[in-house]
């Protein structure tokens, strides 16, 4: 397994855990300004925790296999990245359209922003999963 694939697996797990926790802990009953404050606070915690965990894990992996970590992306890596980003782009576009629908349905800004956040998270998971799948299938 290449360093890039390991980082992709790690990021999938960290994003899944971080935003799974966010969705569980978020006070969905709150409305208005207090809901936005809760969203901002939780997002800050999630962002800091994700950055810390991913940085520490990436450093540990790089120390374990420095040659792999320093290897530049070759043409196949770039091709896999490009195809995964294209798939994620379509998911993001559909997610954005769904956010417009949610905004039409509810006037609560926190719900709309959480929908947008959900679209970004799902698109990122699709991008990472596409990359992992391509590496696994040896494409």
């Amino acid at each position, binding site marked *: 397994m*290449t360093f890039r694939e390991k980082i992709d697996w790690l990021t999938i797990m960290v994003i899944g855990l971080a935003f799974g926790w966010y969705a569980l802990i978020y006070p969905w009953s709150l409305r208005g300004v207090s809901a936005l404050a809760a969203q901002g606070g939780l997002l800050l915690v999630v962002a800091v925790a994700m950055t810390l965990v991913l940085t520490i894990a990436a450093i540990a992996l790089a120390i374990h296999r420095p040659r792999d970590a320093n*290897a530049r992306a*070759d*043409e*196949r890596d770039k*091709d896999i990245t490009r195809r995964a980003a294209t798939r994620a782009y379509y998911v993001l576009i559909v997610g954005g359209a769904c956010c417009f629908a949610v905004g039409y349905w509810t006037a609560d800004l926190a719900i709309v922003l959480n929908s947008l956040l959900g679209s970004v998270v799902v698109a990122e998971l699709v991008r990472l999963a596409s990359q992992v799948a391509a*590496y696994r*299938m*040896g*494409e």
Partner: protein
Amino acid sequence: MAKPPFTNDIRTLRFLAGEMTQGELGDRVGVTRQTIAAIEQGKYSPSLEVAFRIARVFGKPLEAVFQWDDATD
């Protein structure tokens, strides 16, 4: 991804070149071991530059390494 319409003899040529490993070939070509494995298995079509680099490592012309497969054309 669709199988490319050509086959290759990289595995044989590696064997004839003193059982060169995929990693060694990858290092000399400038790609990863996984990319060489994917090319060997016909799962990835290399760029013209990488194809020429592979052929140059073995000291062979391009068509001695990659052959057009009329059956899948």
